[in-house]
């Protein structure tokens, strides 16, 4: 990089105190880029050079920093979603949102819990034979859990235990379980 031919590209603050800026210079001859940290000080020649060559002022750097922070936040969200998908705790359909360029909203733990509780309530008191794979899976997992409990595992009422095992609806399952645990 030849600093004598440098052209201003961008400058942002590196700290909330706004006492240092990160400057990106470019060389138009070979598209090389160079990064530099400059002290914000009206007596500092390097800082004055940034303002002069960049034709910018302090306010412009504030704006550029805000834009950079917005971009970084979005990059962070995308990275978090990617990791979440890889590890299975974020649904794949969020990918469509990412690809469409729509704003991604991340749910808080409380929001997620509220959704989960509503979901469980909808499933647990249903008196219909489930067609939804999600409810079938819920019943299967719940039965496994129930038969792992000492109170049910060791219960002598084999008839109710059989009924619990054969329960077709969540409501039947819960009532048989309650009978054995009561």
């Amino acid at each position, binding site marked *: *990089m*030849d*600093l*004598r031919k440098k052209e201003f590209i961008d400058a942002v603050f*590196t*700290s909330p105190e706004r*006492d*240092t800026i990160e400057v990106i210079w470019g060389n138009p001859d070979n598209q090389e880029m*160079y*990064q*530099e*940290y*400059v*002290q914000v000080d009206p007596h*500092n*020649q*390097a800082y004055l050079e940034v303002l002069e060559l960049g034709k910018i002022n302090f306010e412009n750097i504030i704006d550029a920093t805000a834009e950079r922070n917005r971009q970084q936040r979005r990059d962070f969200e995308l*990275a978090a979603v990617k*990791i979440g998908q890889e*590890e299975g705790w974020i649904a794949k359909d969020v990918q469509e949102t990412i690809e469409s360029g729509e704003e991604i909203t991340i749910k808080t733990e409380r929001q997620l819990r509220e959704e989960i509780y509503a979901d469980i309530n909808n499933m647990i008191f249903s008196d219909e034979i489930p067609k939804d794979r999600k409810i079938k899976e819920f019943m299967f997992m719940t039965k496994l859990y129930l038969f792992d409990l000492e109170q049910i595992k060791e219960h002598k009422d084999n008839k109710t235990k059989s009924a619990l095992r054969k329960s077709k609806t969540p409501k039947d399952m819960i009532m048989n379980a309650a009978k054995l645990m009561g």
Partner: protein
Amino acid sequence: MAFRRPLYVESGSNDLREMTDTMIDGVRQWAIQTHAGSGADYATSATTVGSSITFTASGGNLGTMTDNRLIAGVALTRVDRFPTSGETGDAANISINYSRMNQTTNYNTLNSDSGKKNFVYYDGNDVVAMTNTDMYDTIYSQAIDTLVTGSDIDGTYRIGTSASISGMTEMFGGPIFTDTRADVASYTAGGIDEVNDQPTTITNYYLHFVNSGYATDTSNYVNPVMIDSNNDLFYTSSTTVRDNIFIPDMRYWVGQKVRYSINGSGNNRGSAMVDTRMNGSNYQQRFVNANDYRAQEFPGGSAATVSTYYLRIRKI
């Protein structure tokens, strides 16, 4: 002890004339350039300027710069439940100290002016040689003022974020400071217990020497007139002026008057060196099986500046 206006021989008329301000500035520019450049008796200009910075593995007298980064806490495993964030080890700071820059000054001794060594001026009655102090007041003091402005001037050192800067020589063949941070993407819940220290390099900072001819303009230089051993006036080549006068004198005066520091007073030289670190932690759990519940605190949050270091130059 004063500013003197050196004499030169005017081309064509061969008259003795007093130098203009522009010519004197050309002489100063040549003094700066020759100080930074290669002379007759040394090989590496960067280590023979009046105030030089050399590499030392540790204990450099320009002081210590510290690179801080977070590492993950110690992972914990339980058989009954997930360890709480209060039970797992906290993400912790580690620091790496860099004190690789050693400043050497007073490289040269000043030769006696002996009444004839230096350029001549007209005192109103006679043509007389300048004293060493006159030379300093006329040429070297202003040249040193130029060196310490903070701009990239021949013979000064600066910090760069690239190992290669055109017109400069990278010293030491490696960074003099490296800012690292925890590589948060490398820490995953599925990997608990993760290796505690997984750093990534954010920026390497290199020390550069600004080579001779980088910023100086000697187009206005004219050879000053001097006095020989027979008390005759003469002028010689610019290279002889360089080798016999400017190199030894500038080494001496720069050694006497120019100082570098880290975060001391003076003007910044090149890029600031910023030490950044993640500013939070990130508690994660991993369920391995019903008898193996793990948790660990990873570095998290966002990058924050811990310290900023400036290489500075000043005239004393």
